[in-house]
């Protein structure tokens, strides 16, 4: 308990935390060395190569290595230079000018200019492309070239978070002529300006990426090669790390973290984050169209126990809003109490005096989805809910249930800002509007907060938005997860990102005792 408080306080001072991280990063006296191969395990195979259509961590990882965007996301959730070296806006934050790096080349040899940036954003913003982050880039009205190496982005409404919004993993720049002539070819043949190039791609097995010798940051990347291996089974992945067959695990299950962290030669990586599991309820169909049913279910969760049982203590309790202490505008509120008696009364009021039978769907990846479903079933029993659990293969789940089902366990990474989280999942126009909550008051809070740069006003607006979600419960968000990973001791320069979707492998280097060196 005490530890959690300390961590929260540390989190709130995110700026201080970032400064600390930079300080630690600068500490080792060893200079970064070039060369070597990093062998990395992921638990869900990358399936989509087209950078504008990626939707899962391993795919984000590949897109980030193969392509570049205008800005990239720092571990402190600020925008950092990528293709754009500097940017500025007019006073009311509706017109932004991004200055592009000169001399950047795509992997096919073409030079990258403002025309490619303009074409890429036109494609990203075209609803027909179906880019998952379309709504997350902000209220962009137009992107225009200003000479060969600058672009002007205008927004419909003031949008202070634009440089951060443009770090969305799908917002990558690809050549204009490929967009015009052969966009679908990006599904097989990547053409980007990222730090690595694709050498081999075998879905469900391995992706091999090699160093891009023309990368626009001199001296980077350090690594000659990165192998991304898919281990569908997390036990197999940790065994491989401990046996020295891989150098790094992108994802460690909470159940396994203590053991891996304690092993010799391996360091556990843990970062508090806004990553969460939620229980999605379609609020347009019975019984979830009745707010009392959702509130009753929300009263059936012992949130502290949920953190213990589902996240094995590596997490923080949630209050049915996707914002926690890892975010800037988190509005702290007392944790909702576990009160099955009151839940029962609410259910009776909603017309279910004899209880309610439900079926919840949980994908098998990651494993704690079904754990949460089982825990929810058990916790909700005294409240009059009889919830049966149906587990499902992950690809079947993505295909048949995600965004379509009426009651299932969702899993989301932290987003750079509050607004992006709300606009991705909970506003009426959200890209992934799973709950179909469509609350006008909530939309209004989020819209206003998006438009203002006034910190005090934003604090108020986001607090209202969080309170509204807590009261109306479009989804249950009982538990946030720390990001857990592991690396061999000789892997240097990796800063685990709380967002869970940025990786910066171009800054990773292998120490002298790495087996794959040279």
């Amino acid at each position, binding site marked *: 308990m005490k530890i959690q408080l300390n961590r929260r306080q540390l989190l709130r001072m995110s700026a201080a935390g970032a400064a600390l991280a930079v300080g630690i990063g600068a500490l080792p006296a060893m200079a970064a060395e070039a060369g070597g191969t990093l062998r990395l395990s992921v638990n869900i195979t990358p399936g989509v190569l087209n950078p504008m259509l990626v939707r899962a961590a391993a795919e984000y990882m590949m897109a980030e290595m193969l392509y570049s965007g205008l800005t990239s996301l720092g571990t402190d959730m600020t925008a950092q230079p990528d293709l754009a070296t500097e940017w500025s806006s007019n006073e009311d934050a509706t017109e932004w000018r991004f200055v592009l790096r000169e001399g950047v080349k795509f992997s096919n040899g073409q030079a990258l200019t403002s025309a490619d940036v303009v074409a890429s954003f036109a494609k990203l913003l075209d609803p027909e492309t179906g880019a998952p982050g379309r709504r997350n880039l902000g209220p962009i009205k137009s992107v225009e070239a200003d000479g060969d190496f600058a672009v002007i982005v205008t927004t419909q409404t003031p949008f202070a978070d634009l440089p951060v919004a443009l770090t969305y993993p799908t917002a990558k720049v690809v050549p204009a002529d490929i967009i015009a002539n052969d966009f679908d070819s990006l599904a097989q043949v990547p053409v980007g300006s990222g730090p690595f190039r694709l050498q081999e791609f075998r879905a469900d097995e391995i992706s091999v990426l090699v160093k891009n010798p023309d990368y626009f940051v001199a001296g980077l990347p350090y690594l000659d090669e990165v192998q991304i291996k898919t281990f569908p089974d997390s036990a197999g992945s940790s065994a491989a790390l401990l046996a020295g067959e891989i150098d790094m695990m992108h994802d460690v299950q909470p159940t396994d973290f203590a053991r891996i962290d304690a092993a010799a030669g391996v360091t556990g990586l843990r970062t508090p984050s806004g990553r969460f599991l939620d229980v999605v309820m379609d609020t347009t169909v019975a019984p979830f169209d009745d707010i009392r049913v959702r509130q009753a279910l929300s009263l059936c969760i012992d949130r502290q126990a949920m953190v213990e049982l589902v996240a094995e203590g590596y997490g923080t309790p949630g209050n049915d809003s996707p914002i926690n202490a890892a975010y800037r505008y988190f509005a702290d509120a007392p944790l909702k109490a576990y009160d099955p008696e009151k839940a029962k009364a609410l259910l009776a009021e909603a017309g279910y005096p004899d209880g309610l039978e439900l079926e919840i769907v949980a994908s*098998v990846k990651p*494993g704690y989805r079904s754990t949460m479903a089982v*825990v929810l079933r058990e916790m909700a029993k005294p409240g009059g809910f009889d919830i049966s659990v149906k587990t499902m*293969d992950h690809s079947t789940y993505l295909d048949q249930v995600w965004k379509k089902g009426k009651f299932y366990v969702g899993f989301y990474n932290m987003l750079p800002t509050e607004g992006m989280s709300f606009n991705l999942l909970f506003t009426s126009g959200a890209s992934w509007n799973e709950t179909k909550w469509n609350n006008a008051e909530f939309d209004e809070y989020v819209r206003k907060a998006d438009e203002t740069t006034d910190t005090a006003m934003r604090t108020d607006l986001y607090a209202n938005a969080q309170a509204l979600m807590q009261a109306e419960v479009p989804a249950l968000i009982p538990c946030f997860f720390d990001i857990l990973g592991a690396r061999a001791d000789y892997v240097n320069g990796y800063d685990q990102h709380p967002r869970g979707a940025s990786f910066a492998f171009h800054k990773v280097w292998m120490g002298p005792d790495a087996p794959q060196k040279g």
Partner: protein
Amino acid sequence: MQATLKTLRALMRSPQGAVGTILVTLLLFISVFGPMLAPQDPESFNFGSRFSEPTSQFLFGTDWFGRDLLSRVLVGARSTVLLAILATIIGTASGALIGIFSGFVGGWIDEVIMRTIDAVMAIPGLLLALMILTVLGSSSLNAVIAIGIAFAPGMSRIARSTTLSVRELDYVSAARARGESSLWIIFAEILPNMVAPVIVEATIRVAFAIMTLATLSFLGLGAQPPSSEWGLMIAEAREHMFRSPWPILVPGVAIALVAIAFNLLGDGLRDVLNPHAQE
């Protein structure tokens, strides 16, 4: 009745038959009365006692939610053992009927049926079950049906070959000469005389069915959590293997015991029912 008693007595004389019979009887007892014997609710959490080792309160220890493993195994016996037996009965009955019919009728109908069976047999049983489950959707009952269907071809071949040898015997010819109907000949003359090898085969198949059922649940296609089906218990416990061995050990030993019990019983039955084996 007398024949059954005689078989049983002979069975108890052989060591494997005796052990198998006793174990299987015990298992069936647990399967039927398990939920009543369980000291605790198999699904209720004990927050204070996660990963408990065997103690006087939890005889087999507890799992990651603090659920009592003894209770879970006892309750899970029903869904594991009885469903396996059900799957075997479905496979045996349908396979035997197809086999007898095919063998008795003979000619081109026999050819058509047997070549179809051959084609189905070319697909490994687990793969066939997986295919069927993909079509039907995953649930315990569908897993049982899938295993039953996957077992039928093998059973029908055994039934057919026995039928072929029985068909030519004098008492069948006599029945034919009397002008009995085909159905009567199948059920009254052939079936009783070929039931022994089918029973032996079925007994051994129960062990396979348990393992296949556990495999399907392990793959997430059979029972759904928080069911205490043994295969599912193992699949779920795998994640916690390094923190406590008990959640994986207890259902694992249970499955092994059941498989051994039915194999021993099958071996014993084969010796007793097959006169040639005694030589």
